[in-house]
């Protein structure tokens, strides 16, 4: 989450506003706090304990012992409200919460389907929302949407609009000229359209009503459940696009086979990479723990081996592999593999304690694992993994990759003073298993830096993975070669000196390099990635 602060609310009135906007992922939604003199409203508590802690901390920092007066749920998918179900403090505010009556029922009866708890791997417990909305026989308002006013003590005026389609209990909340739209704009995406509770006809009706309402109520900004605020003019364009997507999904209540097949293939390649990465991480923990035992550092060995529940990780991977094997024999549909992979990836993600593992495992390997899980969850949820493209100095980036893999890179073992620090530094050193030999990587570039437009972080991780694995296969003469083929194109060739076979890992690596913003071409002993030439050198 980005650092945030109270700002003036854009929707009118003398209200203060505290948006907690996260990167787009499946783990948790954005949250929004809105304060007036008398009211303090939370829209969507999200699903991450740290996010809930931040919300509570922001509230406790307010002068005058302010307390939440209402929690508004845009819908009851677990990424938007798991903290209301599970957070030790926020769950005690369920009586302040508002949701559509069908969401009230879903949380009360622990409906793992409608809440997406099963897909997201979240545990439910019966939760009683205090204020179910749309319980009577309302008539649709002038935009064709059912409306209900949320009672507030002071001068806040909140109108709830029932906008089913993404889920039966979806609601948009209007405060002045601001509109909180939940997942409306994601409702037509592959992996989203077709989830339990989705209704194409309801969604088209809701989108049409929303479009009219945005114009009729002079809405200026829409706050989405995921991602940044959207100016109303762009929101209308997005609604048109979603409507078009949804219309094209005519007759499909589940996912299209093509989309699910693509997701399943992606799942297979990414899960194989996740499997190998976690085996390396768990194996290194076992290795370091063993070495410390050999050095009669039993206490430290015990602490190191407890930073990951290797048995649980292994068990989840075995369950996935067993299911994937059945899938390859034709026993399961693509969607089931995609769901299974999402379920397992979510559980694996929760078993990874970066803080503890960071005492032994190199940061790039943990970042690589995060990226794998996040990319899969992003695709599964219906988005495309995003590249953050910028002008980069390719020579500097390639040298960073080469230097970080050099076994001579410095460590702190000899610089430590206390025995405890020494043992910790030793564990870190042992965990950084070096497979690349000294001087086995060269960077070939001209004297002048060459700029390219690329995602440097994605490139570095993909290059790390390719070079490290090739070194583990025995390659010891590798090169990173940079050239400007013409005014428009810069190529980086990673040559490993050994023939590389096309397999699941190479499919993964091709995608990984493509996601760094390049066009990928295989060569016999490596890979060539072409990027648009950059304009400046940073």
């Amino acid at each position, binding site marked *: 989450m980005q650092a945030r602060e109270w700002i003036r609310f854009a929707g009118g009135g003398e209200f203060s506003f505290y948006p907690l906007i996260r990167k787009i992922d499946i783990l948790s939604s954005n949250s929004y706090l809105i304060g007036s003199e008398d009211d303090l409203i939370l829209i969507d508590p999200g699903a991450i304990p740290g996010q809930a802690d931040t919300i509570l901390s922001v509230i406790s920092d307010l002068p005058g012992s302010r307390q939440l007066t209402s929690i508004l749920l845009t819908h009851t998918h677990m990424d938007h409200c798991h903290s209301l179900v599970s957070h030790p403090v926020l769950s005690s505010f369920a009586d302040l919460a508002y949701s559509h009556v069908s969401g009230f029922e879903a949380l009360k009866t622990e409906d793992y389907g409608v809440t997406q708890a099963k897909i997201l791997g979240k545990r439910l417990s019966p939760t009683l929302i205090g204020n179910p909305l749309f319980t009577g026989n309302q008539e649709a308002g002038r935009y064709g949407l059912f409306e209900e006013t949320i009672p507030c003590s002071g001068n806040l005026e909140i109108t709830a609009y029932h906008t089913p389609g993404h889920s039966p209990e979806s609601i948009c909340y209007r405060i002045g000229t601001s509109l909180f739209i939940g997942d409306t704009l994601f409702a037509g995406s592959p992996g989203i359209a077709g989830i339990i509770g989705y209704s194409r006809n309801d969604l088209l009706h809701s989108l049409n009503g929303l479009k009219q309402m945005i114009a009729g109520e002079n809405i200026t900004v829409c706050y989405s459940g995921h991602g940044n605020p959207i100016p109303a003019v762009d929101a209308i364009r997005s609604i048109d696009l979603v409507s078009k997507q949804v219309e094209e999904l005519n007759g499909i209540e589940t996912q299209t086979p093509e989309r699910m097949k693509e997701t399943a293939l992606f799942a297979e390649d990414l899960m194989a990479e996740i499997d190998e990465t*976690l*085996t390396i991480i768990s*194996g290194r923990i*076992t*290795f370091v723990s*063993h070495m410390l035992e050999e050095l009669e550092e039993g206490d430290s060995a015990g602490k190191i081996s407890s930073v990951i529940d*290797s*048995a649980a990780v292994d068990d989840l991977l*075995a369950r996935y592999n067993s299911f994937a094997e059945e899938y390859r024999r034709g026993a399961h549909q693509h969607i089931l593999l995609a769901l299974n992979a999402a379920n397992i990836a979510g559980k694996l993600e929760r078993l990874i304690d970066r803080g503890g593992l960071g005492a032994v495992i190199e940061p790039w390997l943990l970042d690589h694992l995060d990226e794998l899980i996040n990319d899969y969850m992003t695709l599964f949820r219906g988005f495309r993994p995003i590249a953050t493209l910028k002008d980069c100095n390719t020579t500097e980036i390639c040298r960073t990759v080469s230097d970080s893999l050099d076994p001579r890179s410095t460590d702190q073992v000899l610089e430590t003073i206390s025995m405890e620090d020494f043992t910790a530094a030793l564990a870190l050193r042992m965990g950084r*298993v070096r497979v690349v030999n000294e001087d086995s990587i060269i960077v070939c570039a001209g004297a002048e830096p060459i700029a390219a437009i690329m995602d440097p972080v994605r490139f570095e991780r993909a290059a790390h993975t390719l070079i490290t694995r090739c070194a583990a296969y025995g390659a010891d003469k590798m090169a990173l070669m940079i050239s400007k083929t013409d005014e428009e194109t810069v190529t980086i060739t990673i040559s490993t000196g050994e023939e590389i076979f096309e397999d699941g890992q190479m499919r993964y690596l091709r995608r990984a390099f493509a996601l760094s913003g390049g066009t990928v071409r295989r060569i016999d002993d490596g890979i060539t990635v072409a990027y648009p030439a950059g304009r400046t050198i940073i």
Partner: protein
Amino acid sequence: MEITIADSQGVRFADVSGRIDSKTAPEVENILRSFTGEQEGNVIVNCSGLEYISSGGLRALLIIEKEMKGSGRHLILCGLRTDVEKIFRLTGFTSIFTIEKTVGDAIEHLR
């Protein structure tokens, strides 16, 4: 996963094939323990049919190696497929085990 054990001309072999994961690692550990605990001497583990090893599989082999090491004996691994050997290298386990290319190399090592 399949594991077969044999004594041939005074050399003791275990042939492991298939997958060693969380389901099969305990079985591998138990069979190897009963085999390695019976008699004196090193044991050659032929991994040429081993397709996959998880961290649980690595741990199972490590436990047996540590048990044998107490009496000055070792497991000698051989015939690792490139993708399995890659895991041994990337986890540091190549520095724990004696690893030979072929069964012949492993026998030679014993002499």
